[in-house]
């Protein structure tokens, strides 16, 4: 026991750690104060949260902001804008044209729900809405691709424009898939990762196909 008396913490060894304070204790004060704030502040706070998540999708680093504070505003905006841009104005023709608004909407939301259920059934630890949030936000690169495709189609619709569109859509498809797997892959059991990633690949492939085959009437 004599040795214990010699133990002393040298001054050059840093002592470090984390002290976390439970967050919940703040909420009564928060509710009280957000009731009095101007509406502009409330809206800007939500818009900033959505915008921050967009940035996280475009530069998918290992941050948990997308997962922790999920919201479905971003996916809704992206889905609606993508579905609107996929309308070629062919509503009055009876050709077998591109997908209707409702079809795009259903494919995106139903597809995201099915993929989420699939990953949960395979033993994933992510929650339902977090997964929906990630899958919805990762449609952003494809929405950008759709915008670029429409602009390119305004210039012309020959072979050159097709090649440009093909390259853009393929690149954005790869970006979407990589971004969503970067966020979702950690929550899956290790020997089933491929089983979870494949449906995500199929989902973004179908959306990319719809974007690539868009032809204005």
């Amino acid at each position: 026991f004599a040795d214990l008396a010699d133990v002393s913490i040298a001054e050059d060894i840093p002592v470090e750690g984390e002290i976390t304070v439970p967050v919940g204790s703040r909420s009564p004060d928060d509710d009280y104060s957000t009731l009095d704030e101007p509406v502009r502040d409330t809206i800007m706070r939500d818009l900033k949260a959505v915008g921050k998540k967009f940035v996280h999708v475009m530069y998918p680093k290992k941050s948990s902001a997308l997962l922790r504070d999920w919201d479905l505003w971003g996916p809704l905006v992206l889905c609606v804008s993508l579905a609107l841009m996929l309308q070629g104005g062919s509503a009055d023709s009876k050709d077998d044209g591109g997908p209707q608004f409702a079809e795009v909407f259903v494919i995106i939301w139903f597809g995201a729900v099915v993929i989420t259920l699939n990953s949960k059934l395979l033993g994933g630890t992510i929650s339902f809405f977090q997964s929906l949030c990630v899958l919805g936000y990762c449609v952003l690169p494809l929405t950008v691709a759709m915008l670029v495709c429409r602009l390119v189609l305004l210039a012309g619709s020959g072979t050159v424009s097709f090649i440009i569109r093909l390259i853009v859509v393929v690149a954005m498809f790869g970006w979407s898939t990589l971004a969503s797997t970067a966020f979702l892959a950690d929550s899956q059991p290790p020997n089933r990762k491929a089983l979870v990633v494949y449906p995500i690949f199929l989902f973004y492939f179908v959306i990319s196909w719809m974007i690539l085959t868009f032809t204005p009437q």
Partner: protein
Amino acid sequence: FAEFDDAANLLAANPDATTISIDEPAEISKNQHGRLQEPGREEDDELLGTDDSDKTELLAGQKKSAPFWTFDYYQMFFDVDTYQVLDRIKGSVFPVPGKNFVRLYIRSNPDLYGPFWICATLVFTIAVSGNLSNFFIHLGKPTYHYVPEFRKVSIAATAIYAYAWLVPLALWGFLMWRNSKVMNIVSYSFLEIVCVYGYSLFIYIPTAILWIIPQKVVRWVLVMFSLCLSGSVLVMTFWPAVRDDNRRIALATVGTIVLLHALLAVGCLAYFFDAPELDFPAPIIPVHNGTTIITKS
């Protein structure tokens, strides 16, 4: 559990020969992987061999414990790893003569992952390939305007999911009815039949991609080839279940299975893929008011 131990020891003492004869590469690798995960279950596999009716009942007792309205009940049907799914796909494409797909690969662990996602992939593959093939066939014609034909996705989905779920339902009902009349040694649960049908559709995915080639001969050769492969897997799976029955009924059942499988392939080929046209220009008929009508040959 004393009797179980005795039986296991007797079998272990006796036929090492039979256990070796059924060991194939897939099963050896599966055993090696399995040893890392569930040692108890894989040891039973080795000792009891393929005569796993005892094991099936034991495991059936263990597995079906959650009530059907809970999430855990459905999680039981997704209890597969990546290598298991890949093995099952491989087993559905390369039929091993004399081996039964259900006994060899499914082994009382039917999953719904394979059937569901193989059907989904097949739906989109057929729609996309059909669209691409039509585009290439009609490319260069002045009157052709490309349309994505998105309606066909929902038609394909209805057809393929109906085949993958209603035909197993009908087959299962039929086999149950025959079982009540004639005692069959081999009987399958509904999910095992769904599993076999789902995995047997996998061969049509590369076939649909190759159907883009606009040659009639190539397409029909592909149909025959894929039908032989997956049809033989289905036949070898279901023949043991009906062979103890009346000869004519057994042959009729197996014949119907193969016929429906062929109908699905031919139907998809006919509906989603336009016929590749021959290489002469279409005749132009001048009409009295000055417009010309180009007829398809």
